[in-house]
């Protein structure tokens, strides 16, 4: 979970957006974290690098919980 938060915060920080302190399963990637499609594209690359799974491969991922299910953490 910490690693996932780290990835998300790095994406936010790279474009000088405010980072998040905690992530929760019910958080929406777009509405709560503020990711646009470019951010999601970047997210999937970093997540795949660390966890070996392309989270968007077979459909859209909405929330932190969805990611956790896909990568099994």
């Amino acid at each position, binding site marked *: 979970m910490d690693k996932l938060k780290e990835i998300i915060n790095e994406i936010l920080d790279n474009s*000088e957006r405010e980072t998040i302190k905690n992530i929760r399963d019910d958080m929406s990637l777009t509405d709560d974290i503020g990711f646009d499609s*470019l951010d999601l*594209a970047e997210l999937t690359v970093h997540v795949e690098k660390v966890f070996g799974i392309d989270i*968007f*491969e077979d459909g859209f991922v909405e929330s932190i919980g969805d990611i956790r299910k896909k990568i099994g953490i």
Partner: protein
Amino acid sequence: MDKLFFYNQIDNENITYRDLIMILNGKADYHIGTSQTYGDIFINIIRTLLQGKPVTGVTDMILKIRRAKDWNINLYTSGTTGIPKKVTHSFDSLTREIKVSRDRAEDIWGLAYNPMHMAGLQVFFQALLNGNSIINLFKLSKKNIYKLIEQFNITHISATATFYRQLLPCNKIFPSIKQITFGGEKYSDKVSGEIKKIFPNARILNIYASTEAGSLFTSNGDIFWIKDRYIPFVRVVDNELLIHKDILGEFGLSGDWYHTGDMVEIININPLRFRFVARKNEIINVGGYNVSPHEVEEIISKYPKVKNVVVYGKPNSVLGNIICADIEAVASIGQKNIRLFLKDKLADYKIPRIINFVDKVEMTETGKVKRI
């Protein structure tokens, strides 16, 4: 002192025109080792052009070469992508844009291309048909290149933007250089500006040539126009440059028009003025938006400390492709700094989301940046 024909530090080759005439007349041997050298390649080409005829001197040799009939050479497209393709050129199609005149007699050429590819052969024939000296600079280090420019008073260099980029930075000036030609890759204003400082007496040219067509257009910036004699043979359709088969080498083209895969931006329709944007297969589609890697590379290269950069697309499950950049920097730069630098210079979908800092950006055999 006998005039130098070819100097190549790598294989210890130092051939004068006097040596060359003796070799061609069978009065001297030429072979250095078991592997083929650039000197071997050049001498073989001249031999086949002369078809065994003896020559009385340099002027006679040039005259006989220019009368060569039924001569052709097979070249292979280097292919930054795809499979190499065989293209057969005649002497005329290969030397169409070679300029011979008395005031070119003392030019000294730096060879910065593989001699068996189109661009290297253009340099070879330009020098040979004017009786000039050729100094090999291809595959040499920055230090050696500058050393040879000074030692031989090189006046002309034709090379890729990547080659010139490797000569930067440099605090010295080299006044002997009269002409710098960019070719083979998209022209870069930034590199050209920096190069002009090192070679203050140089006229800067930009040339469009391909293995299929040979040398076709030149320009003194990034906007090209078409010489009158080529107007009927050049077209732009859907922003792609098309060339008629009558001015191409032979490679089994079906139809009359060859689709170059070079995408252009039209600046003026009549007379036609255009700028090269990218290779068709280099355009990256990011969620429906087209991105030219060259545009992104040009802007990243303006960031201080960036020495070389290559931009490419990687398949991505969210957007189809994601823009990536491999950056070779002279000192450490943060990924965030690059992104912030690009923020107000490029649309957001053009900004690389994956940035890797690498020791060296990889090159192809012809000295072009290798896209992954």
